């Protein structure tokens, strides 16, 4: 469903942060994207999500060349992808409930039609008591789970998560990983960027390892 072919990427006129990256992500697959801090994991996820353009090479997402995608086609593609940012990107002036429901709201659904799903999901990630809280008063772990819930609410075909367990204690991290695995079993492709070796040891999955901007793949 996703193909990178000799992709290179630089910020501005700096050095290439990603060099000659080629890989596929298949439907229904599960992979960790790993490597030391600063290796380019976040940059790679942003390329996948098309919030960055590659400096060279070809990226195909759901069969479409990202270079020729128009601004009108982009929302349709993004709706098939759920993303959890390292810095969460929750909106501080909306309640947790509204933040999680945001993807559905922007699709024009009635609040009544998704209320139940949102609340169920919030319960599932253990935030049911924080439904009407605003993000600034939440702990890092709570924000992280809210960000995950927002990425999952519209049942994406592909889930991208950037250090999703970075703010969680090992116990919660394990539960979140179980959630991702469960999601993957139901058909969603999952890419988890992490430098948490402990987390990766808990599940045997394909590893994409970034080092110095180059990619190695361990199946």
């Amino acid at each position: 469903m996703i193909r990178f072919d000799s992709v290179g990427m630089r910020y501005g006129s700096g050095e290439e942060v990603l060099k000659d990256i080629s890989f596929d992500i298949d439907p229904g697959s599960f992979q960790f994207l790993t490597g030391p801090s600063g290796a380019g994991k976040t940059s790679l996820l942003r390329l996948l999500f098309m919030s960055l353009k590659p400096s060279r090479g070809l990226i195909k997402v759901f069969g479409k060349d990202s270079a020729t995608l128009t601004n009108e086609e982009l929302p349709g593609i993004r709706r098939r992808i759920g993303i959890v940012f390292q810095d969460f990107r929750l909106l501080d002036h909306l309640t947790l409930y509204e933040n999680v429901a945001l993807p559905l709201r922007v699709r024009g659904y009635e609040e009544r039609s998704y209320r139940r799903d949102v609340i169920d999901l919030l319960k599932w990630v253990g935030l049911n008591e924080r439904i009407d809280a605003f993000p600034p008063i939440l702990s890092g772990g709570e924000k992280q789970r809210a960000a995950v819930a927002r990425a999952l609410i519209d049942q994406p075909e592909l889930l991208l998560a950037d250090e999703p367990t970075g703010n969680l204690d090992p116990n919660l991290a394990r539960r979140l990983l179980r959630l991702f695995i469960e999601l993957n079993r139901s058909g969603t492709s999952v890419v988890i960027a992490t430098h948490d070796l402990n987390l990766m040891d808990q599940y045997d999955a394909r590893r994409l390892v970034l080092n110095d901007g180059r990619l190695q793949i361990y199946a």
Partner: protein
Amino acid sequence: MPDLETKPIKPVEKTPEDAEHKQHSIVPRSSVSGSTLTLVVAIMAFLASLTLGAVWTVNDTAQSWQNDVSREITVQVRPVDGVDLDTALISARQIVGSYPGVRSVNVVDNVAMAALLEPWLGGGLNLEELPVPRLVSVSINESNPPDMEAMAAQLKANVPGASLDNHRAWIERLTTMARTTILTGLLIFVLMMIATVLTVVFATRGAMAGSKHIIEVLHFVGAEQSYIATQFQKHFLFLGLRGALAGGFFAIVFFLFVGWWASGNPADPTSNQVEALFGTFGIGIGGYLSILLLIFIISVLTALTSRFTVLRHVGTLDRSSGDG
């Protein structure tokens, strides 16, 4: 998505899940610097309403002048040596009266004539002794006017010293003046609308810059550009409506007051002069309706302007965001 119900992380508890959840607006009101914009829109709406009102007044006044003037023509009979003025007046009256479209013919008699001339020549005039032209005032049917050219020719041929004045030059000058005033008013009006639009463009861009992180998140969760534009448009429609209502309200109050001052004070000689010149100063139902229409137009204009501004710039906040 997996069947979440079967593998709860926490036991499911009862929460008031059927309660309505308050929906905050996605672009917070605080990101739009509303009070300045409202004030600018209000001032613009007020000035635009005044301009519209002035245009209405000039138009109405010119119209009524024109009607008054074109309802009447005048035959002037100058005294000519060896011709009896009264006989000349009688034949002039006969000629004019024979044309279809003439309603009534009135020789302005000596007494009325003396009254007309009194301001210039003083009282106690004996017109018999002065070589003063005499007037025949003719009221005509405006919708079916008599053939003036034929009338003028016949008068000239049969009554020595008679000439027909249909006030055309006067009407034309008036009309030109009124038109110029109206065009100037409309030009000012258009310029004010443009200034309003530009203000809204800048305000929208400011609001967008302040809401960059929100727009980014909206992009990430798959919002379409039109959806994002609608979020901003809502605020600006509200602000535009508020400003336009305030401006329009004060303009209406202004015109009501001026109308009252000009007509409700007949003892005041100033107001009499004003009224003689402009008729009643009020802008009439049409004027008030056009101010209401203006309020509507300004709010819609504000909303649409912000919409198009967002649509024009929102794309650049997406993929090139960051820096790559």
